[in-house]
């Protein structure tokens, strides 16, 4: 079979920006997004008039039908390519893939990837109620009182049954993330926690305790992506290249998930690795969607960092932190840095990009050149993986 003409190395990230995150009262999702965007543009050294493409996620607290269009108006630009993508938590990685495809296909030259939301301080009572009652299918799921957390909990529970994964191993994920967040300026949660703290934090939906669950936050992130040629002609400092991208969508309802313990991430990552020409063993750092602790354990398996069923032991052996096989979520992730909904997964991109540029100070993973970011959502219905690398990895 003829190889597909791929995106590998054709597009680079030349700027990244973060708004304040955590509890940011009095700032709308649009302001947060615009704040992140101006920082990303400043870092890229380009004016907002040079942006001809805008891709965004939706914002729950600013329920525009076309957030990317509302954002462009707010930011004072009139792009010639734009869309608002929605595949739940996996949206972040698809924003990079679609943005790269648009640049590689000549639909746009410079794309701003942006997402912002204020779930912690920005939800009206109406939206807060809707967020609880409309999150799952109204016919076959919601009448039984199943929050989305419950769908993830059932996958983790089955993982315990099939592979002997323990609550202590889940808790260790939270502990590692907190330790990472303690070294990240601006992180929402920075008080140290222990495994016992997690196990004693009160059950939310078994097997998950409160501290097994991610945060509720405000915040935004934005990125400037452009062609590799243009990155060079602009003299961009340390561009980070998109080397591979893959997605996989296996079901909508949790009861139609083909396997509760092997997810679409196995396929999305395989495709992303294949495009990049690298494998799991080559990755120096990772950003892994951590909406729940068990999610990370399942993902280190499906992303190929350890064999199926050994994720719990892998985490307990210190393999997802400094000195381990794959330092992951060095910013603290959704569990401890911040989780403002769909933009939450953009924070993983921000951290991995900073790591690849060697800008993480005391959090730096020495010599990081290759990074993986995996985002997922809706009870593992949606999975998307990106492989990023420095100039040396092209």
């Amino acid at each position: 079979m003829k190889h597909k003409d791929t995106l590998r190395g054709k597009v680079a990230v030349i700027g990244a920006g973060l708004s304040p995150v955590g509890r940011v009262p009095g700032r709308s999702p649009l302001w947060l997004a615009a704040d992140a965007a101006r920082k990303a543009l400043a870092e890229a050294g380009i004016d907002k008039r040079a942006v001809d493409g805008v891709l965004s996620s939706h914002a729950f607290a600013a329920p525009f039908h076309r957030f990317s269009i509302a954002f462009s108006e707010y930011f004072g630009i009139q792009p010639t390519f734009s869309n608002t993508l929605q595949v739940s938590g996996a949206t972040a990685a698809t924003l990079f893939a679609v943005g790269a495809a648009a640049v590689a296909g000549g639909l746009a030259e410079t794309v701003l990837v942006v997402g912002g939301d204020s779930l912690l301080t920005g939800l009206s009572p109406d939206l807060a109620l809707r967020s609880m009652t409309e999150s799952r299918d109204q016919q076959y799921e919601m009448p039984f009182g199943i929050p989305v957390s419950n769908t993830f909990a059932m996958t983790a529970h089955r993982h315990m049954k099939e592979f002997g994964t323990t609550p202590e191993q889940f808790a260790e994920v939270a502990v590692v993330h907190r330790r990472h967040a303690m070294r990240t300026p601006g992180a929402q949660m920075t008080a140290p926690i222990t495994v016992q703290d997690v196990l004693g934090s009160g059950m939310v939906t078994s097997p998950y305790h409160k501290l097994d669950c991610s945060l509720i936050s405000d915040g935004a992130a934005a990125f400037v992506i452009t062609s590799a040629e243009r990155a060079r002609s602009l003299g961009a400092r340390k561009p980070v290249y998109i080397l591979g991208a893959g997605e996989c969508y296996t079901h909508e309802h949790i009861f139609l998930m083909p396997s509760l313990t092997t997810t679409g991430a196995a396929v999305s990552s395989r495709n992303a690795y294949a495009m990049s020409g690298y494998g799991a063993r080559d990755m120096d750092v990772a950003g892994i969607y951590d909406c729940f602790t068990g999610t990370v354990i399942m993902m280190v398996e499906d992303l190929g960092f350890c064999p199926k069923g050994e994720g719990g032991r892998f985490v307990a052996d210190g393999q997802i932190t400094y000195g381990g096989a794959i330092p992951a979520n060095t910013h603290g992730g959704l569990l401890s840095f911040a989780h403002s909904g769909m933009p939450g997964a953009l924070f993983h991109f921000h951290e991995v990009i900073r790591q690849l540029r060697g800008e993480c100070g005391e959090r730096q993973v020495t010599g990081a050149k290759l990074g993986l970011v995996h985002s997922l959502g809706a009870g593992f219905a949606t999975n998307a993986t990106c492989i990023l690398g420095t100039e040396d990895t092209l």
Partner: protein
Amino acid sequence: MSIRGKACIAGVYEHPTRKAADKSVFQLHAEVAKGAPRDAGLSMRDVDGYVCSGYDYYHNDEGNYHEA
């Protein structure tokens, strides 16, 4: 770089129904989605991408659970 001439429309299908009180929205999507590959002489197994228009149903469903 451009997409000029790189992709082609291999199959099309327009649903003949205009008033579909007896069909769910998903059924309508499914029926047209079946028609286009058939027109192209392909099967569903040849399809690895799907994009659709429709109402964007956005919500917070990503497991955020505790404020602090």
